């Protein structure tokens, strides 16, 4: 177990190192000089040079890469070119929107997907199953930004049950915060729930064909008892993989949704930073997202072990 964790940890570190090079390289070739963007159309050359020096843009690329990486290792993500505040601070603020949103969406999608998937698996081939499977097919096919648009149109503009967007802030209480994250979370969660429900169902169906399910029935467990006691936990293994993938997707992929609901989250930060050529912010946020994805995958791997004792003892 420890060895397993350690090995994963090392490959995690390696992945991060390679990722940092790739990100830096991609962003370096981006056209558009941050300094001239900031100073606008009438900037004087000497002003520009002064600003470039101030931003640390006047050193060579490798040097800049090293500065960036060593800064990050020390917890210093640099200073935003445009906002002139520490990137770490900005990211931390945004994280308080993106992370709860991702968790909220993930919780919603899990809460929807589990019962639905189990229901469908238990009624395999019956009308209930077919209806659920049809609905999930549709759920997968719906682009989430389009879904978000429709949600806003219906629930915010017409019914006015929710705010059309924006974030009330956690200072106004948990409820206010959650309320403003509800529509975005639904927009993110439903298509994901459709995928998760399908995975849950097919994993369960696979498990239902296993010998030990027959053994359980032979002990006197009813179909339902066997499904819950022996099926669900085994089915968690493939389901966990998907949840892991989805979390990364939700965290990173909410860019568009944050855009639709104008939430001050990480996704919007990246978008703004890209269009403002705030390279240091882009680099750091993307790096952070990669870090999050890799870490989540690592945690998922560890979670496997919690679910599956076979992995635990693989010393």
């Amino acid at each position: 177990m420890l060895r397993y964790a350690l090995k994963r940890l090392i490959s995690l570190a390696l992945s991060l190192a390679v990722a940092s090079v790739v990100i830096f390289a991609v962003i370096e070739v981006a056209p558009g000089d941050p300094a001239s963007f900031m100073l606008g159309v009438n900037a004087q050359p000497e002003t520009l040079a002064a600003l470039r020096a101030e931003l640390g843009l006047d050193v060579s690329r490798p040097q800049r890469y090293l500065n960036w990486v060593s800064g990050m290792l020390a917890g210093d993500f640099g200073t935003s070119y445009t906002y002139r505040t520490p990137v770490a601070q900005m990211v931390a603020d945004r994280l308080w929107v993106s992370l709860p949103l991702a968790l909220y969406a993930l919780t919603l999608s899990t809460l929807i997907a589990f019962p639905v998937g189990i229901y469908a698996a238990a009624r395999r081939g019956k009308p209930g199953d077919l209806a659920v499977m049809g609905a999930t097919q549709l759920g997968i096919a719906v682009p989430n930004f389009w879904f978000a648009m429709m949600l806003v149109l219906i629930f915010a503009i017409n019914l006015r049950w929710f705010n059309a967007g924006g974030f009330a802030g956690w200072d106004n209480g948990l409820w206010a915060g959650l309320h403003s994250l509800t529509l975005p979370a639904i927009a993110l969660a439903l298509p994901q729930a459709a995928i998760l429900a399908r995975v849950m169902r097919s994993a369960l169906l696979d498990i239902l064909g296993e010998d030990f399910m027959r053994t359980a029935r032979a002990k006197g467990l009813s179909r339902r008892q066997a499904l819950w006691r022996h099926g669900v936990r085994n089915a968690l293994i493939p389901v966990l993989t998907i949840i892991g993938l989805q979390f990364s997707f939700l965290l990173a992929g909410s860019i568009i949704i944050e855009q639709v609901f104008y939430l001050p989250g990480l996704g919007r930060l990246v978008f703004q930073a890209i269009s403002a050529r705030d390279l240091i912010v882009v680099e750091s946020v993307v790096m952070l997202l990669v870090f999050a994805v890799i870490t989540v995958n690592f945690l998922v791997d560890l979670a496997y072990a919690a679910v599956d004792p076979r992995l635990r003892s693989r010393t």
Partner: protein
Amino acid sequence: MSRALILGAALSSVVVLMALLSFVWTPYDHAALNIPEKLQPPNAQHWFGTDHFGRDMFSMIMVGARTSIAVALVAVGIGMALGAPLGLAAAARKGSWLDELIMRGNDLVFAFPSLVIAILITAVFGPGAVNAIIAIGIFNIPVFARITRGAALSLWEREFILAARVAGKGAARISAEHILPNVANLLIVQGTIQFSLGILAEAGLSYVGLGAQPPTPSWGRMLADAQTMVSFAPHLALIPGLAIIVTVLGLNLLGDGLRDWLDPRIRVARA
């Protein structure tokens, strides 16, 4: 043949036929502006209505299908053409540095939040269909590499591969002669699924303005253009949205149906 397969094939072929038909015929010139006639709801002249420039939506949807299909197809093609050989090679040299390199490379690509990178790539290299293809294609490579490797590994354990080795065949030859044909079904099915994901991805990129550029019509961009007008011209958003849904639904049903039809045992990853 299952109902899913028939329905999926029907929906997908309607879309494909529409795209093909658009090369020779559309009701109107999809690019012709007619500002006095803008924002008409669906009617007898314009079946899907007109957009904010008075263009015929039906013609735009037809030509847009072309864009979506082309971008997704080429992206999946890239993913498969590069991913499958990598997967075969990794499986053939299981446990070697090559395998390790390929798999770690895969993990790395997987570790990048795909949408962010797609946005980054198109933002850096400029928006446009070609860059969208590359951005989507890159993330298809590990999908195909991984699935090919997984299937190939279990095939390498099979005795008929051992028999081929006893017959003196090398890894490359075995991969081509024995492994590839046996993973082909899997690749086709996964390809269909990736194709549908590609269409969604293209729509997403176009929606944020990083996909195909005007005047090439694209469903995602039609949605973006429609955004502010849904409240008074809902057809602008509904129609491209439904076009995407129908296409993706059709392809997914086709993929699922094909999988059941070709081989009930193979498992397809959908992520």
